[in-house]
């Protein structure tokens, strides 16, 4: 689960990570009041940041024509004007796709002058099955590009989960960033706090980009997490009620929310052949084989091992509410499930949803003969297939007609 920048910073601050002072708001008036307070506290510049789950906000463009989802302001009135231009409007960035995202919340925060930018992240290193902290002197840029063009610029420290990130490791990373003297201590505190956030919140990733050297209130240089991105392991949400409450349904695709209500794993894609499959691996392979025979999959959909009538009906409804869908391929390997049970479920679902699109069904496994008989005797306009390849070729041909 992804959370907003302001939520990520709230979590980080709880674990002692220095973040710029600020708060979230949902009206221009609130934004102005927040800015008034920040200026009164001595901030010289205040930033207004659109809160959406996508990167590239600064260079983004609102559908209203207003440019930039992140704005630096020198007065509370300027904050008010920018907030008014952003709130309630749709921001399109290189990560949102052409539909963009509606901005309904803003982060208003102090924006001290930045002297240097770094990159910092904690994630799971799958090769060692241990947490990994990585830093780079090249901050504020796309880290994937750095990894490709200049991999030596990224320094990594693998963490033993039995003891967590040790201070000596934090000092090594600080040294790798060229931090010396009075900056070592705030760096160690910040790195330890970031790791603690990752571990205790069951995050799958914590990314601080940029991590900045800024001028502190006392005039001395210090460190601050100027932007932050946190995603949480869905499997661990049951033990983090406060974090679970941060879920923003407005950021998720409506069909995917609907699917999750029925324990269906659905991901919308941009093709026109929908698929309904049991098992994640088989579902991926079904998308692949549709593409292999020249079609384009409209979705990933795993109905799980059970595939009850209710689930199959819900799955058909979800598939059919995607207007791009021109045909459906059902691919079920009835291992433990009986194929006749599944066939009965499909027939009921097709009747209930009044399906009129081409439907190719491939059933294999337990009681397959009876399953096929049920499909045939239903007199519904569906096409049976013997193998995955056969099914994929048939549905691709049917959609092209």
């Amino acid at each position, binding site marked *: 689960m992804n959370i907003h920048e302001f939520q990520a910073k709230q979590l980080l601050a709880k674990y002692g990570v220095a973040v710029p002072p600020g708060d979230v708001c949902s009206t221009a008036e609130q934004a102005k009041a927040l800015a008034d307070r920040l200026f009164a506290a001595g901030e010289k510049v205040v930033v207004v940041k659109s809160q959406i789950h996508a990167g590239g906000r600064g260079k983004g463009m609102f559908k209203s024509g207003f440019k930039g989802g992140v704005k630096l302001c020198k007065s509370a009135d300027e904050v008010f004007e920018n907030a008014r231009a952003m709130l309630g409007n749709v921001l399109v960035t290189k990560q949102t796709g052409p539909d963009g995202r509606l901005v309904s919340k803003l982060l208003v925060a102090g924006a001290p002058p930045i002297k240097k930018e770094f990159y910092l992240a904690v994630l799971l290193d799958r*090769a060692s099955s*241990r947490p990994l902290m990585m830093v780079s002197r090249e901050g504020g840029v796309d880290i994937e590009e750095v990894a490709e063009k200049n991999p030596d610029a990224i320094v990594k420290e693998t963490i033993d989960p039995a003891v967590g990130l040790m201070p000596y490791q934090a000092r090594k990373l600080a040294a790798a960033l060229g931090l010396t003297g009075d900056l070592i201590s705030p760096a160690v505190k910040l790195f330890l706090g970031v790791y603690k956030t990752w571990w205790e919140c069951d995050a799958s990733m914590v990314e601080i980009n940029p991590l900045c050297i800024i001028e502190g209130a006392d005039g001395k240089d210090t460190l601050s997490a100027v932007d932050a991105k946190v995603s949480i392991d869905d499997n661990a949400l049951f033990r983090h009620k406060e974090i679970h409450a941060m879920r923003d349904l407005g950021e998720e695709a409506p069909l995917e929310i609907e699917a999750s209500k029925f324990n269906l794993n659905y991901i919308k894609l941009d093709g026109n052949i929908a698929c309904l499959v049991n098992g994640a691996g088989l579902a991926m392979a079904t998308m692949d084989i549709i593409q292999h025979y020249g079609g384009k999959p409209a979705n990933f959909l795993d109905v799980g091992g059970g595939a009850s009538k209710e689930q199959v009906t819900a799955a058909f409804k979800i598939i059919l509410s995607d207007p791009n869908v021109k045909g459906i391929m059902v691919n079920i390997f009835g291992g433990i499930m009986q194929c006749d049970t599944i066939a009965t479920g499909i027939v009921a679902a097709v009747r209930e949803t009044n399906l009129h699109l081409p439907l190719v069904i491939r059933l294999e496994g337990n009681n397959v003969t009876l399953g096929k008989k049920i499909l045939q005797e239903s007199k519904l306009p569906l096409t049976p297939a013997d193998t995955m390849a056969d099914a994929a070729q048939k549905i691709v041909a049917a959609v092209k007609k």
Partner: protein
Amino acid sequence: MSILVSPTTKLLVQGITGSFGARHTQLSLEYGTQVVAGVTPGKGGQLFEKKVPIFDTVAEAVKATGATASAIFVPPPFAGDAILEGVDAGLDLVVCITEGIPVNDMVKVRRAMDGRKTRLIGPNCPGIVTPGTGRDSIGGCRIGIAPGYIHKKGNIGVVSRSGTLTYEAVWQLTSRGVGQSTCVGIGGDPVNCTSHLDVLKMFNDDPETHGIIMIGEIGGSAEEEAAAWIKKNCRKPVAGFIAGATAPPGRRMGHAGAIVSGGKGTAAAKIAAFREAGIGIAETPTVMAETLLKMM
């Protein structure tokens, strides 16, 4: 021979009284698996299906029955604890079927298993089947949730991250009259304890395994590591399939570990590694068995 388990392996089931665990224990018993004990805290002293004794702890179950392997069906919040209980009891093999265990729980479990002799398969896996010689391969050892009847005793090893794709490969083999030595589902989570490579090494050393089907999917680099090893060391033909060529980057495709992130873990990179290692590439999942059989 076979790998990991044989028809004489004594199995205990952790979470035997839950509906999922009970149903699959029943199926394993029907398959002929030696299920000698169940464990459900608080239900010690009872019998499962009037014949399998239930214990409160794994240690008691092992002491009383001599079980050497365990199947875990306990819910995700308690699964990490259940795995380590099996490790503590000195089991040779623990197979964790549970899906949805928090990643950090598994990070801790992996760390705690360092230096211990127990092998863990999973989590989030379909389990292991060593087929038997009876009708519908009955008389074998079935640990987990795979349908037993699709198997046939023989000489092909199958290793996969995905459940239904494993069944697909097994069924393609059996339909052609070709049997399997052992089929291992290693699971779809980002942290698992037995990799493709671990299983390949076992198949390579098993005299009854003559050929191998390896099924992978997007995410991580386990398939690439396995391919590099195969190129140098594997004496047996290997056919492979990778699922997820059409998966959009940054999206998790059902399995927690199936995600292309930061340009890493793509199907294209894995297929290239397979090709480089001389692994037969199944262009579609329909031809997994055919691809291997052509090589043999």
